[in-house]
């Protein structure tokens, strides 16, 4: 950017610009014509694949309701698959499905009336039209939480815990923080970084576990790669927003903008962070990783309390009205509710993997934002106090993790 000279920005003659476009489009046009030629000529080996049809189905979701087992199945293979019969515990059962044939990447919901018993193990197999079997095990039957009003209420409540309440509480810390030594504050910030680092690793591992032996997610959409794609996309998106807001902030400062305006911009930025956090919590809940959900709630609640500080800092000298403070808190915290809803409603494992990754990416971005606040006077980020804080943060979640799996 800083090296961009006037010559590079000088407008090119119209004709030159057109020829540049043509040069850019040439390979694309060539590829298109080759594909068209193949399609028209029906080149042997294109339309037909030798051998028997490949039937790859994965059971993405198991829903247990009173007197009913419901399986959501996705066709993860290259050929359409027809589910002809369904067996539960070595007994064929009547079932309903919207159609017979499942096209590639399509999903189908199979509903089996079944008088299941809580805590018992079940093994279902789906018999395809060619006689293939797709086996699905239910380790211990437990009723699925209904996704009605109660469920969305629960998600909203989670969002309130994660977003609204901690931010509000953090804003109340202002008088305290104004009086504590800088070193203490740095330790608190480092502790938050430690907590978040643990959560990011956990979210990635959870996303990876959706696939492979223990999972059951279709891999045609990218599988494990989705977790990392989600992380990268979320990180880049939040970083871009951050940069954009900073730019506006600078301009606002230059134009002599008031503290409240800066606080609003920061609140909007934090709100975007909290949307990602809500997504991570909602998706963790729906894939059954509720313990991670609990972790996230604790971690985000602690972290978001510190976010409250960031909002009130610019307006410390001129305390605004309570209503205005509440409004800023909502802008920063409420998106967590929306995120939790979206995360919980998007029960698709591939989407869940992406969202878990997005959560990790968001965390990475927040850590990066927090790092300046833990630097000591010499500008070092990793001094004894900050390192101790981070280790303490990681230790807190590690130890609570031991409690949970015990």
């Amino acid at each position, binding site marked *: 950017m800083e090296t961009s000279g006037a010559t590079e920005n000088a407008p090119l003659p119209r004709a030159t610009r057109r020829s540049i476009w043509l040069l850019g489009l040439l390979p694309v046009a060539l590829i298109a014509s080759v594909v068209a030629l193949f399609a028209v000529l029906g080149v042997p080996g294109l339309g037909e694949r030798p051998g*028997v049809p490949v*039937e*790859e*189905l*994965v059971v993405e979701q198991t829903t*247990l*309701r*009173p*007197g*009913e087992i419901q399986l959501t199945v996705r066709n993860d293979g290259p050929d359409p698959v027809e589910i*002809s*019969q369904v067996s539960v515990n070595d*007994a*064929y*059962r*009547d*079932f309903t499905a919207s159609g*017979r044939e499942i096209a590639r990447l399509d999903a189908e919901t199979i509903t089996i*009336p*079944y*008088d299941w018993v*809580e805590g018992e193990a079940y093994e279902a*197999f789906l*018999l*395809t*039209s*060619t006689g*293939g*079997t*797709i*086996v*699905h*095990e*239910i*380790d*211990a039957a*437990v*009723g699925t*939480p*209904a996704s009605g009003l*109660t*469920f969305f*209420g*629960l998600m909203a409540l*989670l969002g*309130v*815990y994660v977003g609204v309440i901690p931010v509000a509480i953090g804003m109340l810390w202002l008088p305290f923080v104004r009086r504590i030594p800088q070193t203490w504050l740095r330790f608190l910030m480092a502790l938050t970084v430690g907590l978040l680092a643990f959560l990011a690793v956990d979210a990635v591992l959870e996303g990876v576990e*959706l696939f492979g*032996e*223990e999972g*059951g*997610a279709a891999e045609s959409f990218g599988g494990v790669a989705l977790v990392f794609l989600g992380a990268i996309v979320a990180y880049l998106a939040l970083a871009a927003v951050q940069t954009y807001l900073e730019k506006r902030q600078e301009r606002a400062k230059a134009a002599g903008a008031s503290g409240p305006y800066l606080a609003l911009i920061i609140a909007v930025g934090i709100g975007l962070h909290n949307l990602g956090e809500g997504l991570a919590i909602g998706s963790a809940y729906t*894939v*059954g*990783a*509720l*313990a991670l959900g609990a972790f996230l709630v*604790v971690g985000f609640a602690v972290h978001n309390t510190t976010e409250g500080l960031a909002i009130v800092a610019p307006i410390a000298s001129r305390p605004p009205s309570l209503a205005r403070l509440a409004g800023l808190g909502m802008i920063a915290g409420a998106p967590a509710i929306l995120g939790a809803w979206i995360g919980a409603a998007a029960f698709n494992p591939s989407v869940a993997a992406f969202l878990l990754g997005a959560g990790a990416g968001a965390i990475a971005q927040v850590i990066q934002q927090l790092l300046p606040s833990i630097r000591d006077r010499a500008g070092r980020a990793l001094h004894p106090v900050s390192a101790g804080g981070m280790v303490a943060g990681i230790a807190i979640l590690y130890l*609570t993790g031991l*409690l949970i799996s015990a």
Partner: protein
Amino acid sequence: MTRRAPWRAQPAAGLGTVLTRRRLFAGLAPILGTAAAAKFTGLGQAAEAGSGHGAPTAHARHSHAFQAGRAVDHQANGFNPSDIVRDFDMGQTSRLPDGRVLREWEIVAEDKEIEIAPGVKYPAWVYNGRVPGPTLRCRQGERLRIRFINASSHPHSIHFHGIHPANMDGVDRESGEVATGESFTYEFEAQPFGMHHYHCHTAPLAEHVAKGLYGVFIVDPEEGRPEADELVMVMNAFDTNFDFSNEIYAVNTVGFHYQNEPIRVKRNELVRIYLHNILEYDPVNSFHVHANFFNYFPTGTSLQPTEFTDTIMLAQGQRGILELRFPHAGKFMFHAHKHEFAELGWLGFFEVVD
């Protein structure tokens, strides 16, 4: 053989751990440090309501069955279990110079895809276009001549149970491996009387039998048996995914067929069942009839029953004759008393009418 599609067994995604995690989350709630946290876990439990014993629904009437409202296309199969159950192939008879009866059949082996449950196709090998093959019936002491033509893409044979010379046994090079497009004529005397069977004996044996090359071979005693409504029941099964265990069990090939189309018999009339177990991959099969008892003649080689019972078990290749009368009108279930087989298709009904 090598046709094994890459199905993937997929265990549940951590469902089993949800309960414990939820409970422990309640333990974690105080860490949240807000009163509303208790409300959160309370809601979690409320959402769980409805677990426990799932209540049976209106669909429960189809408890042992395939998906409702679907049927096998018998016409495409070229045979119908409702016909097979009373179909006896007497062959062509003529007199030999010495006055004895010569009975002749022609049996063609071929590859054929058949529907063994609604919507489930199986690449079978068949005798005369059907599974089980034709029920060959003759009288003790007759001369039998079976011309076997192999129209399948694999070598096949016919091995008869009975008393006959070694070169007619269907296991040596000539009689036991009839190549594609070739034929072999099996010739022997019908001995002893009883309820027998025949099947392909070409290697690999288990596969050649499991794919459908078998049938019932009845040798009537010279004096005959009492007049009766005679039924043939071949207990078979199909390993549809070629993992050496069966997915579909049946009597006369199509799972649950006689549940959807019960076998009609007359009240108080003598019913004789020629029962055969040709199950591959499972060691034992059984037969149980509801609300009735039958006389049992093992292998049908004696005219005196050995047992009066309602349940018998048969090992692979074992068979026998059952005789019974139904004193009451109505629908009576019959099935394998190994309930796994019953619920995987080996279950049907008699419909007793006046």
